[in-house]
C-alpha cells in the first residue's frame, strides 16, 4: 500500500500538539498500517522481558525506553508530524533523516528486526527462536505491501534508526549486566537501619544493581534529580514513626481481604514471572492501542514517552534506594515485632526506600495522563494469561495508586516508600511531559 494513502487516513485522526501532551480523542477507526507489526513485536518483547535472565525491572525499563524511542525516531518525517527527540534527551544525536516515500510498516519491521535481537541478544534458545519466527512471520504478512524499492528503503531506514539508537544506548552505563545484576560480594557490618538480604537464594545476598542510580538519564539531569526527603528516622521504639509504619504493614498483613490479596498479586509483577512493573504499564497501553485503534505514530510517541518515564523513574529510584539504604519490613518486623512473620509477597532483593513500583507507576501514570487526559478509563488484563482477572480503572492515577499500595498489602514496603515513590514519579512525569514530540 502506498505510504501517501496511509498519510491521508491518519491525517483524519489528527495529531495532538505534544508540548502540552493533550489527549487524543478515541477513535473506532481500524488500526492503521504498521500497527499490527508493532503490536505483534511488542507482545513478543513482553515475553522476552519475562524470559531473559538479566531483565530485572530497571533493565527492562531501559529497553522499553530505547525501543520506544527507536520507533518514534523511525516514524519522524512520516505523516504523523513526529519530531525527533535528538537534543532533548541526554546524548541523543540526530538520527539519519528519513527519505521520502517510505512505508511505515516496513520501516517498523526494519527497526524491530534490528533492535529486538540486539536488546535481547542474551536471551535463551527459545527466545532466539521466537525472534526469528516473528521476523519471518511479519515478513510473510507484509509481503507485497510495497514495491521492492520502497520496501528496501523503508527497511533500511528502520534498521539505520535502530542502529543509531543502539549505539547511543551502549554509552549509558546500563548496557552490561553481570551475574543477573547482583554483585559477587555483599557488604558487611550493616547497621540495623540498613538493608540486609531477605532471601535464601544465594545470588541475592548482595543487592540488585547498586550502581543503577548512576546510569545516564533521559530527561532528568541525573539520578539525583527528583530527589526525596529521607524516610522516617529508624527506631525500634514502639510509638515512633518508623515503628508505626512497620506496625501498619504487620497489622495489614494479618487482616488482608481477598481483594487486597488480589491487588498485591496483580501488581506483584515479579521478574522472570511477568513482564516486570514497567512491562505492566507497556501492556496497559498496548491494550488501549488495540481497543482504540490508535494510529501507529501515536503509539510510537506514547511508547517513547512511557519508556523514558519508567526508565528515568528506575534510575532516580535506585539513586534514592542506595542513598538511604533502608531495611525491608521483613527484616524489621521479624527483629522487632514478630520473628515468625511472613509477608504475602516475596521481598525484592534490594533496599526499601522508595518503592520502585510506586515511583515508576507514578511516572507512568503522570505521562499517560498528560497524553490521554484525566479520567481516561481502561481495563488492565496484563495477567490474564496467568489466571488473574482483568481490572478496570477510571484513570491512570487510580491504577498507579493501586500499584503503590499493593506493596504495603504485599508486606514489602512501608507507607513512606509508597507515598514518596508516587511523588517522585510525578516529578519525573512532569519533566518527561515537557518533551516536544510533534510539530507545533
Amino acid at each position, binding site marked *: 500500500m502506498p505510504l501517501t494513502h496511509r498519510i491521508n487516513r491518519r491525517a483524519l485522526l489528527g495529531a495532538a500538539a505534544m508540548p502540552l501532551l493533550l489527549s487524543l480523542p478515541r477513535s473506532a477507526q481500524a488500526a492503521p498500517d504498521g500497527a499490527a507489526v508493532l503490536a505483534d513485536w511488542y507482545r513478543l518483547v513482553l515475553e522476552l522481558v519475562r524470559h531473559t*535472565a538479566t531483565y530485572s525491572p530497571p533493565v527492562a525499563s531501559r529497553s522499553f525506553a530505547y525501543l520506544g524511542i527507536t520507533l518514534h525516531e523511525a516514524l519522524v518525517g512520516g505523516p504523523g508530524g513526529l519530531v525527533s527527540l535528538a537534543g532533548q534527551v541526554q546524548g541523543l544525536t540526530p538520527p539519519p533523516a528519513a527519505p521520502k516515500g517510505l512505508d511505515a510498516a516496513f520501516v517498523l519491521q526494519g527497526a524491530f528486526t534490528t533492535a529486538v535481537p540486539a536488546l535481547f541478544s542474551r536471551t535463551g*534458545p*527459545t527466545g532466539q*527462536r521466537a525472534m526469528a519466527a516473528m521476523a519471518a512471520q511479519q515478513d510473510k504478512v507484509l509481503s507485497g505491501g510495497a514495491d521492492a524499492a520502497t520496501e528496501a528503503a523503508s527497511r533500511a531506514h528502520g534498521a539505520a534508526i535502530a542502529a543509531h539508537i543502539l549505539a547511543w544506548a551502549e554509552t549509558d552505563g546500563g548496557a552490561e*549486566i553481570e*551475574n543477573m545484576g547482583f554483585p559477587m560480594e555483599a557488604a558487611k557490618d550493616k547497621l540495623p537501619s540498613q538493608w540486609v538480604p531477605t532471601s535464601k537464594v*544465594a545470588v541475592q545476598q548482595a543487592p540488585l544493581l547498586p550502581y543503577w542510580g548512576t546510569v545516564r538519564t533521559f530527561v532528568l539531569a541525573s539520578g539525583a534529580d527528583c530527589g526525596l526527603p529521607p524516610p522516617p528516622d529508624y527506631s525500634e521504639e514502639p510509638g515512633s514513626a518508623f515503628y508505626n509504619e512497620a506496625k501498619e504493614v504487620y497489622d495489614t498483613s494479618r487482616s488482608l481481604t481477598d481483594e487486597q490479596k488480589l491487588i498485591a498479586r496483580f501488581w506483584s509483577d515479579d521478574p522472570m*514471572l511477568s513482564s516486570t512493573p514497567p512491562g505492566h504499564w507497556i501492556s496497559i497501553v498496548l491494550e488501549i492501542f488495540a481497543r482504540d485503534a490508535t494510529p501507529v505514530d501515536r503509539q510510537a510517541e506514547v511508547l517513547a514517552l512511557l519508556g523514558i518515564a519508567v526508565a528515568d523513574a528506575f534510575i532516580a529510584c535506585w539513586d534514592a534506594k542506595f542513598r538511604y539504604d533502608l531495611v525491608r519490613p521483613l527484616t524489621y518486623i521479624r527483629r522487632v515485632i514478630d520473628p515468625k512473620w511472613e509477608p504475602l509477597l516475596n521481598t525484592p532483593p534490594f533496599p526499601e526506600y522508595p518503592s520502585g513500583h510506586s515511583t515508576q507507576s507514578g511516572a507512568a501514570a503522570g505521562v499517560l495522563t498528560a497524553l490521554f487526559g484525566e479520567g481516561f478509563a481502561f481495563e488492565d488484563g496484563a495477567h490474564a494469561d496467568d489466571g*488473574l482477572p482483568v481490572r478496570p480503572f477510571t484513570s491512570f492515577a487510580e491504577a498507579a495508586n493501586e500499584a503503590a499500595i499493593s506493596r504495603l498489602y504485599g508486606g514489602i514496603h512501608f507507607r513512606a516508600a509508597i507515598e514518596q515513590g508516587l511523588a517522585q514519579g510525578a516529578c519525573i512525569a512532569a519533566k518527561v511531559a515537557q518533551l516536544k514530540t510533534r510539530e507545533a
Partner: protein
Amino acid sequence: MRSLIALILLAAPALAQEPLAPKYLEETATAGLSTAYMGDWQYMVGGGAAVFDCDGDGAQDLFLSGGEAPSGLYRNLSEKGGPLRFEKRDSGLEIDAVTGAWPLDVNGDGNVDLAVLRVGANKLMRGLGDCRFDDASADWNFDGGDAWSTAFAARWEPGADWPTLAVGNYIDRKEEAFPWGSCTPNWLHMPAESGGFAPPEELLPSFCALSILFSDWAGQGFSDLRVSNDREYYKGGQEQLWHIKRHEDPRLYTEAEGWKRLRIWGMGIASRDLDADGDTELFLTSMADNKLQSLVPPPEGKPVAPVYEDQAFARGVTAHRPYTGGDLHPSTAWHAQFEDVNNDGLADLFVAKGNVSSMPDFAMKDPNNLLVQKADGKFAEMGDIAGVASMGNARGGALADFNRDGLMDLVVVNRWEPAQIWRNVTAGAGGFLQLALADEGDNRNAIGAWIEVEADGHRQRREITVGGGHGGGQLGWTHFGLGAATLAKVRVIWPDGAAGDWMELAPGFYRVTRAGAEAQP
C-alpha cells in the same frame, strides 16, 4: 523434617566431622560408551540414563538417551572391583527421539521393562531377557500420545496388577513465536480393569513438568505425585503436589491444605529421607539456585501438611555457581541424586550441570557437583577433589555401583558429546549394603517400600520409587553406606505396609524377600 540441630544430634552422633573425600577415576575412554544426547531445540531438555539389570547377572546395565539420534543399551561387562567396561548391544532399544527412560517391571514377569519417553509417541519396551526388548505399547493398550514428554513416574496401587504411570509433558513443540504458556497436558495412565492400561487421563492444569515423582512424602503409607515445573514456559503455574487415588479424580493439594506456591525453573527431583525421621527431603534443581525442601513438622495435634522449609542455603547445597573453572555465571542444574559416595552412612548429592544451549548469562563451563554430607548435616563441594568436575554440557546421569565393589560409580549424559563415566576408587571408604527387594505379586520390585538400616546407632531410611531425576532413573540395588560398622540391622516396610522382621546383615549384597535376606555373590 525436624530442625537442622535435631538432625545433627539424632542422625549422625558418632561420625567424623570432616567427611572422607571421595575419589573417582574417569574411564570414559575405555568403558565403551559412545552415545551422546543429540538434537536442537526439542532436545534442550531431557537426556537421561536408565540403570537396571537387563540380563539377570546382577550387574547394572545402562541405557543412554540419544535425543534425535538412536539411543543405546550397554551391557555391563565390568569385573568385580575392576575397571568399568560396557558392550553396546543390539537390543531393540535403538530408538530415536528419546528424551528419557525409566526402568520398571510393568507386567510383573521378572524381566525389567523400560518406559521410553520421546518427542512423539512414548513407548513401553518389554524386557524379553538377555537385554532384548520389543515394543509392548499396543499389547498393553498403552497410548504413547504425541507430545514432548519429559518426566515419568510410576507406582502400584494397593491390589493393582498393573502400575499407575504418570507422564510429564513439556511445551507445544509446534509453537514457534509464542511457546510460552503452551504447556501441554500431563498424562495419567491408570491400570485397566481388564489388564494393561486405560486411556490416559489429562492431569490438568499442567505446567511443563521436567520431573515428577510418586512418593510417600510424609511417611503416611500412601504416595502422592510431586511435579516440578519449568517456570520458563508456564503461565499461572507453580510446583504441584497431586492427590492421586484409584477410582477418584486427581486433585491438587491446596493452600488450605498447607501447600505454598513455589515457582522455579524446576528441572529435577531427588528425594531422600536425610534425617531418617520418616519423611523425605526433596532436592529440586533449577537455574541460579536449587532448593532443598524439608517438611515442617505440624503444630501439636494438627495433621501433617505439605509445608516445606528451604534448607539449601543453610546446608550448603544451593550449588548456584561454578565452584571451579573460573566461570562465575550462575549455574544450570538438571539431574540430581542422593547417594552415599564414601560409604560413611550419610547421603551425598550429585548434581548434573550444563548450559541450556548458549545462554550467555549462565555458565558455559558449569562443572557437575558432588556435594558430600558432613556430620553436621551441611554439605561440602568435593566435585573437583573427587575428579568429577566435568565441564561437559550435562543433563542426566546416575550414581550406581557398576563394578559391584560397593562404591557408587558415576555416569553422566552430555548434550552433543558422549556420556562420561567415572569409577569410584575411594580408598578407606566404609562398608556397605546393597539390597535388591523382590516382592510377591505383580509389583515385583516392591515399588513403594521403605528400607530401614541401623548401624552403630545411626539410622537410615530409603523409599523405593520409580521417577524423579532428570530424564532417567534406576531399578535394582539400593545402596547404604555403613561406615565402620561390621553389622547392620535391616528391615523392609513392604508396599502394603507390612513391616518385615529386623535382620542382622554383614556388609555385602543381598536379595531381600518377605522371607528374609539372601546373600548374593
